């Protein structure tokens, strides 16, 4: 078994996959569900319900607000309480739809059985039909960023897709939701991969899985043993292997050029295993995206676990069901410790991209004190994009935006490897992101001219 990995940089954070072998539980319904209108990259969705409307599980509550956008479906049945603003993960108030939960009544057309629907039994599904169903169901990337899936399946005319790469890497510490999904729904995922292949009109798919999940690799090897065009690629454990560009490099050894190039420019369409599962449900079961697998974890959480959560469930409810927040200072992350967002309030709901709620407590919650840069170059070694983080951070703090652009700051994927490895605990990524933001807006205004 040949182990593959990407070629530049990378770090090895402690795994802490506490919940890896805990099977998924179904989380309780919330009393009130909150649906932010912007759960994906692109234009916010537009509400199509009004205060007082009755909705069922799977009812459309907001339609796509533009081409790059995704509709939102209710995950609960009940009454729309209000369309208002509510605090989001960053603490700013964003538009949301709030629904008071009453009972659990589903839309009739959703197939709630466990029967495995095979693509081979449905020859009537054309690629266009599959893409349309994915688009209507509001499926977005389930790995965190939340890019609408159907757009990735329609590459620009200049590029031609050659293969689909399924991301089962889960290189972030703590998170195990994708792993549990792979262990519990392997057949559905494989059907989802077939759907994605048909939709993208390619006949090759790779499933990349890190070798810290030997059981998942074994299971998928067995399930795909007689499927010629789906290949399982075991990958060495290294962060940020789950990054699109790193995964493409690791699996098919092609490097995506600098932005604005995307993976499809080298022939690859990258999708998360969670997305493959959601695609299966959307196409075969007519079930729009309104629930997902989420890990609630943390070293000091009493009963961590993996949950099947209805979107819109507030963090506080999930954390309470796991034994509540530990005493003292805590950092509650939507996502994992390397790229997750620290939330300002526990009223934040689970969204399409929330793969984990990670609680860092006490010592782990705080950053370490900053020391002077000793110019050791470890950040340069760690950068998976071949950048010089120390230089970008300095240039950003000096606001030298022209020089920053020359030094390819726009290639930064915000993986945080530089800051992770810095012996002086410097806020390297904080600085770089400041500069990157400024450079991006300069580039945008230049393009407008």
């Amino acid at each position, binding site marked *: 078994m040949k182990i593959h990995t990407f070629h530049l940089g990378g770090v090895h954070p402690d795994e802490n996959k506490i919940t890896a072998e805990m099977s998924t539980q179904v989380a309780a319904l919330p009393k009130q569900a909150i649906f932010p209108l912007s759960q994906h990259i692109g234009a916010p969705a537009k509400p199509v319900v009004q205060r007082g409307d009755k909705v069922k599980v799977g009812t459309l509550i907001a339609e796509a607000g533009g081409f790059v956008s995704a509709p939102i479906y209710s995950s609960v049945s009940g009454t729309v309480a209000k369309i208002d603003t509510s605090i989001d993960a960053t603490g700013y108030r964003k538009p949301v739809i709030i629904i008071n939960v009453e009972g659990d009544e589903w839309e009739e057309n959703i197939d709630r059985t466990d029967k495995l629907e095979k693509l081979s039994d449905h020859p009537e599904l054309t690629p266009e039909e599959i893409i349309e169903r994915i688009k209507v169901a509001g499926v977005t990337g389930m790995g965190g960023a939340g890019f609408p899936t159907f757009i990735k399946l329609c590459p620009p005319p200049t590029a031609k897709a050659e293969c689909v790469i399924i991301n089962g890497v889960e290189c972030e510490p703590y998170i195990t939701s994708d792993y549990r999904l792979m262990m519990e729904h392997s057949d559905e995922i494989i059907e989802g991969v077939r759907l994605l292949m048909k939709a993208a009109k390619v006949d090759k798919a790779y499933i990349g899985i890190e070798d810290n999940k030997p059981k998942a690799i074994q299971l998928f090897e067995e399930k795909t043993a007689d499927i010629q065009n789906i290949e399982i690629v075991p990958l060495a454990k290294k962060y940020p292997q789950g990054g699109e560009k790193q995964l493409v490099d690791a699996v098919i050894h092609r490097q995506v*050029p600098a932005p604005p190039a995307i993976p499809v420019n080298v022939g690859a369409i990258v999708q998360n295993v969670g997305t493959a599962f959601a695609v299966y449900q959307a196409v075969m079961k007519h079930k729009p995206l309104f629930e997902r697998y989420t890990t609630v974890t943390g070293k000091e959480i009493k009963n961590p676990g993996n949950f099947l959560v209805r979107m819109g469930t507030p963090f506080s409810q999930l954390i309470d069901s796991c034994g509540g927040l530990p005493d003292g200072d805590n950092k509650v992350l939507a996502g994992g410790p390397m790229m997750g967002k620290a939330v300002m309030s526990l009223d934040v709901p689970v969204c399409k991209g929330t793969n984990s709620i990670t609680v860092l407590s006490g010592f782990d919650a705080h950053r370490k004190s900053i020391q002077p840069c000793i*110019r050791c170059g470890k950040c340069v070694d760690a950068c998976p994009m071949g950048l010089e983080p120390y230089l970008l951070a300095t240039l950003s703090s000096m606001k030298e935006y022209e020089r920053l652009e020359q030094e390819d700051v726009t290639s930064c994927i915000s993986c*945080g490897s530089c800051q992770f490895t810095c012996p002086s605990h410097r806020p390297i990524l904080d600085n770089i992101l400041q500069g990157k933001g400024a450079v991006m807006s300069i580039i945008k205004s230049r393009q407008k001219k």
Partner: protein
Amino acid sequence: MGKLIVSLSPHAHGNETVEKNMYGVVIALIPAILVSLIYFGIGSAVVLLSSVASCVFIEWAISRYILKVNPSISDGSAIVTGLLLGMNLPSNLPIWIVMVGALVAIGIGKMTFGGLGNNPFNPALVGRCFLLVSFPAQMTSWPTSGHWLKYMDAQTGATPLSIMKTAIKSGDASVLNQLPDATQLLLGSNPNLGLGTIGEVCALALLLGLCYLLWKKVITWHIPVSIIGTVIIFSGILHLANPVYADPLTEVFTGGLMLGAIFMATDYVTSPMTHKGQIIYGVAIGFLTIVIRNWGSYPEGMSFAILIMNAFTPLINTYVKPKRFGEKQK
């Protein structure tokens, strides 16, 4: 209930610290220190202790009373500078000269530029070279081995490097026959000659230190290997062309070459950031060392070669870039 903490990602941190790297260097120096105690006895202990103590004191005093900042002695960088300065001095040096060296190293070499991370030149070498040009007599009298309890009154002798210089000047290759063979040089057990500075006696002990540094990932192989490789190739060519020039193994095992290549040139602050840059830097140091040793006026060229290349480090950092992800392979 406690507070919720908010910050940008990443929220996890590796176990790298400044202290871990600095004390890693100190641990890697232990074999060389032990060997020096065996060969030089009390003199080595006096010089090393006074050097470390004065470096730490000067850094503390300057940051406390002149820069008015909280002294950061615990990061270990002053200890490393003190140890390396001591390792670069002869064991019979009077304490007051050691203290002057420490003052120049920390005061001028480091703190005037703003302290840790900002100095363009390796502070220990700044101190050493200052002493070399200010006190040439004291700095070039080298004790021979076996004077356990003698400090300043130890017997002195010529070092292998000065013999090599004599050979080149006189044009007589037979002078080189006085040199001990490579094994003796590796262990540092040359009986009648001066042993050189405290740290350069035993190449084997320094190589042990290198293994530790590489194992603990404090440094990477690029700088030491490129320096030593260049020295071997360049001096080998010279030796084959004219036997007046010493053979490559002698060049590598004598003088502060090992000490410089493993501990001084690899100083984080003053060496390039990228591996490509580090190799350019190492090759240039190796080349300059042999040039200075063979055709310069000093017998030893390592310190000056490193200082010269320190000055080029910002230039290397500006022009030598790592390979970007997705860049077209040429």
